[in-house]
């Protein structure tokens, strides 16, 4: 039942805006969905979708749009509703979004969309997606705090939790978000009355464990996918290092994973991503790989499909010396005959660094890619590359320094690490640069670093 709703409710938002491409069909599906899961869950689902789309919106703004959408469905799905009720209602809502005092979540792109009219406007609005910085994680309140808030107003607590949770998991299928929030609210429901029971909370939390862990993994991987431009290249180097793969093998693997994520992260249905991840696990654990792999890798592959990926994610990367070296940049990189010239260069540059997180690695590789690609499309490739050679060398040196820094970060205690950084970073603007390095290490050396923040911090670094 819930699956039907998950498919249909986005239809409410997107497909109904393609109203003239089968308005009756869309409306009927939505109305069926509403009938199936009921008004409460329907509203929750819409809240999830809008919180994900507009994480910067306030609770009031998101509630407001969710309310209106729900009311629209409720009103126009009645048996005695007029045939054009739905279309009219949807148009009204889009008009409201363009109004001066719109009660709906704001987005810098709205203004531009509103210069368009009718159908185009609706499509434009539907495609808006906020790219704000990641929000800090939710703190876990104590059991007592949960119960105090929950018992004050159950419905309000539920919706607020959905909003806060969804806006922090904006790039994963909405179905997972809904599942997680429903689990949490159910925990409060069961464990707060008549008395607060720690053992009840513990039991519920133990049951939610694997889905929570999977959710975090998925959130991280989809965030990377959505936010990092050269994620595919970062992934290649990452797999090359983790599994000791050649360029060809790593490229194929990262291509597979990347296309799966691209297809499914932003789809509301969980089934898509689950299918992709399951098929990816088969690829990564496929025969050709298994023989050369470590014991830990084998242990991971013996687990159920989705657990394998989590397990692999936890494997320690070892420093590696690739036998091939990234050749000094030459115009060969740009040649038509070698379509993978640049890709291979990026792979060889990144593959030996075992201590950098994916977002950091990807950001630096992206910079290198841009530099080289720009030259490859210039009139005089050789001159361009010669000019950029020192810049490329510096970027590669940066990569090595980042690798060393992160490796040191995990070896030393925090106070000792800070002292070391202060000693090393000297000269002009020393204090600012030290702070930039510290900020980067503290936030971005961990395996699952936040994509957008780390992109930003890497850029800050290069300007110091």
């Amino acid at each position, binding site marked *: 039942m819930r699956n039907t709703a998950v498919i249909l409710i986005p239809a409410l938002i997107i497909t109904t805006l393609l109203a003239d491409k089968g308005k009756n069909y869309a409306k009927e599906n939505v109305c069926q969905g509403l009938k199936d899961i009921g008004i409460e869950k329907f509203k929750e689902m819409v809240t999830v979708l809008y919180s994900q789309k507009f994480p910067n919106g306030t609770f009031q703004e998101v509630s407001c749009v969710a309310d209106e959408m729900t009311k629209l469905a409720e009103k126009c799905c009645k048996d005695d509703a007029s045939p054009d009720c739905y279309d009219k209602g949807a148009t009204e809502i889009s008009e409201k979004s363009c109004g001066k005092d719109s009660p709906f979540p704001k987005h810098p792109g709205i203004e531009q969309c509103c210069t368009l009219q009718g159908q185009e406007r609706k499509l434009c609005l539907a495609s808006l997606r906020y790219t704000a910085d990641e929000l800090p*994680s939710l703190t*876990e309140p*104590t059991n007592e705090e949960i119960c105090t808030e929950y018992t004050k107003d159950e419905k309000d607590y539920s919706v607020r939790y959905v909003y806060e949770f969804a806006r922090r998991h904006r790039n994963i299928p909405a179905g997972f978000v809904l599942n997680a929030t429903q689990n949490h609210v159910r925990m409060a429901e069961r464990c707060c009355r008549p008395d607060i029971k720690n053992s009840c909370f513990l039991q519920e*939390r133990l049951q939610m464990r694997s889905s929570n862990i999977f959710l975090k993994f998925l959130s991280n991987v989809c965030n990377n996918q959505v936010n990092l431009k050269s994620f595919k290249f970062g992934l290649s180097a990452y797999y090359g290092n983790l599994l000791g793969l050649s360029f060809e093998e790593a490229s194929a693997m990262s291509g597979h994973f990347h296309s799966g994520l691209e297809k499914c992260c932003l789809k509301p249905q969980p089934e898509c991503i689950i299918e992709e991840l399951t098929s990816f696990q088969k690829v990564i654990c496929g025969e050709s790989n298994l023989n050369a792999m470590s014991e830990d890798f084998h242990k991971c592959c013996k687990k159920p499909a989705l657990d394998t990926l989590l397990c692999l994610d936890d494997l320690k990367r070892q420093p590696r010396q690739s036998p091939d070296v990234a050749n000094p940049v030459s115009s060969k990189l740009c040649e038509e005959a070698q379509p993978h010239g640049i890709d291979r260069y990026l792979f060889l540059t990144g593959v030996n660094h075992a201590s950098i997180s994916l977002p950091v690695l990807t950001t630096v590789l992206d910079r290198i890619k841009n530099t080289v690609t720009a030259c490859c499309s210039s009139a005089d490739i050789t001159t361009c590359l010669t000019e950029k050679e020192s810049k490329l060398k510096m970027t590669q040196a940066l990569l090595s320094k980042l690798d060393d820094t992160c490796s040191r970060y995990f070896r030393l205690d925090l106070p000792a690490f800070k002292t070391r950084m202060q000693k090393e970073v000297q000269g002009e603007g020393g204090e600012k640069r030290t702070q930039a390095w510290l900020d980067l290490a503290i936030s971005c050396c961990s395996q699952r670093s936040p994509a957008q923040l780390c992109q930003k911090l890497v850029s800050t670094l290069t300007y110091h």
Partner: protein
Amino acid sequence: MSGGVYGGDEVGALVFDMGSYSVRAGYAGEDCPKADFPTVIGVTLDREDGSTLMETDGEKGKQSATTYYIDTNQLRVPRESMEVIEKLTELMFEHYNIPAFFLCKSAVLSAFANGRSTGLVLDSGSTHTTAIPVHDGYVLQQGIVKSPLAGDFMSMQCRELFQELGVEIVPPYVIASKDSVREGAPAIWKKKEKLPQVTRSWHNYMCNTVIQDFQASVLQVSDSPYDEQVAAQMPTVHYELPNGYNCDFGAERLKIPDGLLDPSNAKGLSGNTMLGVGHVVTTSVGMCDIDIRPGLYGSVVVTGGNTLIQGFTDRLNRELSQKTPPSMRLKLIANNTTVERRFSAWIGGSILASLGTFQQMWISKQEYEEGGKQCVDRKCP
């Protein structure tokens, strides 16, 4: 599934928590352990004159050494010592013939005792102060940070204090009688006649108990870094040693435990290489993904006998708030009663073992027979 074999409510479990200072044991579902005894092996030695063992002065738990106590640290070994964990599993099933078994890390159980599956467990016991990040019921190995500054370190400092005062630590078993003396005056006491030979280790053990009693009664952690002038105005506490020596202790009450939080001022430590408790916590959290740090700082579970020193949690709270970003919500979970703080891992085990879902978690004898001792690696996180 083992759940089908054992009929639910009738199954009881025994819960053991083995530490370096004491062992806690009891029944699942209860609030506190039935048994709490020191982790010490007492062994009788043959004596030349064939005399019987001497009785100690009636303190419970320290009976004559024909009773063997278990000294095992297996549950606290790092992950790498899988052989030890597997050996324990083997011992349990083969030698003791138990029907089902489950091992869980103490830190995880301390978090469970508070109904949570995520938190930073700060365990300060006798030998070590350790910060262990627990997330969704699993220990994050890369974040474990250990410091040797703990109960034993403070005992050493107390001993040095007494040495400076020129006071001898005399355990009660030696003393026949004592006279009351003025404050600060040398003790006047009579030694028991016909004291049998005792091993050096036992004598040291008894001296340690004197020091530990002093530690527990007198020491206090100040709520701000140690300052001579502030300490001088500290209210004094009167303490009397078993041999009659008594004194009012003032500044030392604050100075000694301050070493735990700020080792740079502590005696006997070369340089700043030791981490104070605040840094142990922040380093540990810093080793974990940035996403989970708010969850860790939001649940700092303080456990271990050493943390019961008056003022410890307040000072730790202050230290951490200074070291974390202002927006970070910090919450220390420190159970107020002595019982709960010392026994938090045991209590967690008791709660876990009494849950309905526990039956799916344990390793049954059948599973052991089919899967071998490696199944403990698979099933016990």
